[in-house]
């Protein structure tokens, strides 16, 4: 029983990270039709800037940790807004060029991070409580899992509130459904594009700081490794669906953890299998729009 509980919470913690990356990816694709392969770079930049803050101001303090979350989110947001404004804006409706430029940017960003912080993984220190465990039903759960879960739930609630209760949220929901009709109502949808990129980048940057604590290190390749699973989550959840991304993130991560433990380390394979099944039997994803 304790193993199941441990795997479940570990999966939930990992699912929280997947969600923080996939939320932005899903909204960006849903609204703009942009497959953003540079999204992992937003996460990595958030992780490194968060680590820099922690390193310079005392890594074991809660205040430092909270500050690193804030700085990581801001760094991801600024990088994402810059990417949309300078690179993507000129390429709407040109999907091949979008893929090429975002793949190129992700490679260039990794090279840049290599140059600044080196190619080796940097190990992370956090508040002492993170190293401790909390016992639930006999399982000793590492505390950092709870932080990831709480952060992801707060981000989900904030995003849902924003989408449901603000005019820009309404524009984004409408744009995900029918972008050209939004412009045909006299709305400059490009502002919503920049906003969605910024929000997605902030969530990814936040996810980067949390991922560095979850895995215990930060490296230039951190974003790329999480991005693959975030794409899978986005497709399974349904492109453009935030709730779908949340459900799929938890399902994928928990499935991955259980398969790794009970099926001899086949977690990644099982996840890809799940993706194939979804694409075969429900191509629009769990909660995606039907074409």
């Amino acid at each position: 029983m304790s193993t199941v509980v441990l795997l479940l919470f570990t999966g939930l913690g990992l699912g929280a990270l997947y969600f923080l990356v996939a939320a932005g990816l899903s909204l960006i694709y849903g609204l703009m039709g942009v497959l953003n392969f540079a999204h992992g770079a937003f996460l990595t930049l958030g992780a490194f800037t968060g680590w820099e803050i922690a390193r310079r101001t005392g890594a074991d303090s809660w205040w430092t940790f909270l500050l690193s979350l804030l700085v990581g989110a801001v760094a991801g947001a600024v990088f994402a807004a810059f990417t949309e404004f300078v690179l993507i804006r000129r390429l709407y409706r040109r999907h091949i060029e979008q893929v090429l430029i975002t793949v190129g940017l992700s490679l260039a960003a990794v090279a840049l991070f290599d140059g600044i912080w080196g190619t080796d993984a940097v190990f992370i220190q956090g508040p002492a409580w993170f190293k401790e465990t909390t016992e639930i039903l006999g399982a000793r759960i590492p505390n950092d899992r709870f932080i990831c879960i709480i952060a992801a739930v707060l981000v989900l609630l904030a995003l849902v509130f924003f989408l449901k209760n603000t005019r820009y949220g309404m524009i984004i929901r409408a744009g995900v459904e029918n972008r050209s009709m939004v412009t045909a109502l006299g709305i400059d949808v490009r502002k919503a594009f920049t906003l969605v990129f910024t929000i997605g980048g902030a969530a990814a940057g936040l996810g980067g700081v949390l991922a560095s604590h979850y895995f215990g290190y930060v490296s230039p390749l951190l974003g790329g490794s999480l991005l693959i699973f975030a794409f899978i989550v986005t497709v399974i959840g349904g492109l453009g669906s935030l709730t779908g991304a949340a459900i799929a993130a938890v399902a994928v991560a928990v499935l991955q953890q259980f398969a790794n433990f009970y099926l001899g380390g086949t977690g990644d394979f099982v996840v890809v299998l799940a993706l194939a099944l979804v694409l075969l039997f429900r191509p629009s994803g769990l909660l995606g729009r039907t074409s």
Partner: protein
Amino acid sequence: MTATAQAGPILRIEGLNAHIAGQQVVEDVSFTVPATGITALLGRNGVGKTSTIKAIIGLIDRSGLVELDGVRVEKEPTYKIIRSGVGYVPEDREVFSKLTVAENLRLAERDAAPRRQLVEELFPDLLARSGQMAGTLSGGQQQMVSLARALLNTNKILLVDEPTKGLAPKIVAEVAETLAEAAKTVPILLVEQNLQVVRQLAAGAVVLSGGKVVHTGNALEFLDDDGLTQRLLGVSTEAVSHEASPHAEARHAAASQEKGAAL
């Protein structure tokens, strides 16, 4: 009604060409829409009526001149053309199905003082359904949402694309009545397959064939010419009732008077 900058047409299209996925769908189309009344844009299925409407507001790639109230707008993005005073009611309604009726309407509000009261008077049913998801409405109710979105703002022209498509006869009559009411304050360019509705509402007609304009003139005179409608629209207007509505009778009388005066 918005004052026009000049006494001429509210909308002038000249040499309009449009492409979808590399295929030309509108070819050198030129026509004008007067500053009052309803002008019908007619033609068989697939001749480019919807594409023409979309090209006017820049929803598809196009070239040529588009002049709204004396101001050229063809270089402007869609949202700016709409903001300069165009209300668009698309084919197939295109309401946002996952937004409520109230949200669909709020999203369309672009004036500082949107005409909510007018919309509530014209569509009282929408008020009662304001919290309902638009995707769960019937086709007729969705059309009301689509029309209401355009009527919320003060426009120089309404572009209305097949508003009666797929609707029950009773709803068609309601939609036609709403358009007649709207046309008292704003000119309308109307794409419509239902010739009974065209006869009831339209003053002028522009007929497309193969992406080109092949006829322009008085709508009733066009519909009364069975040979011409048979040739250009592929339907006989003898099937369309000549039991004219008060709108049609008045327009017919006015057209005859104008002819007499001209002679």
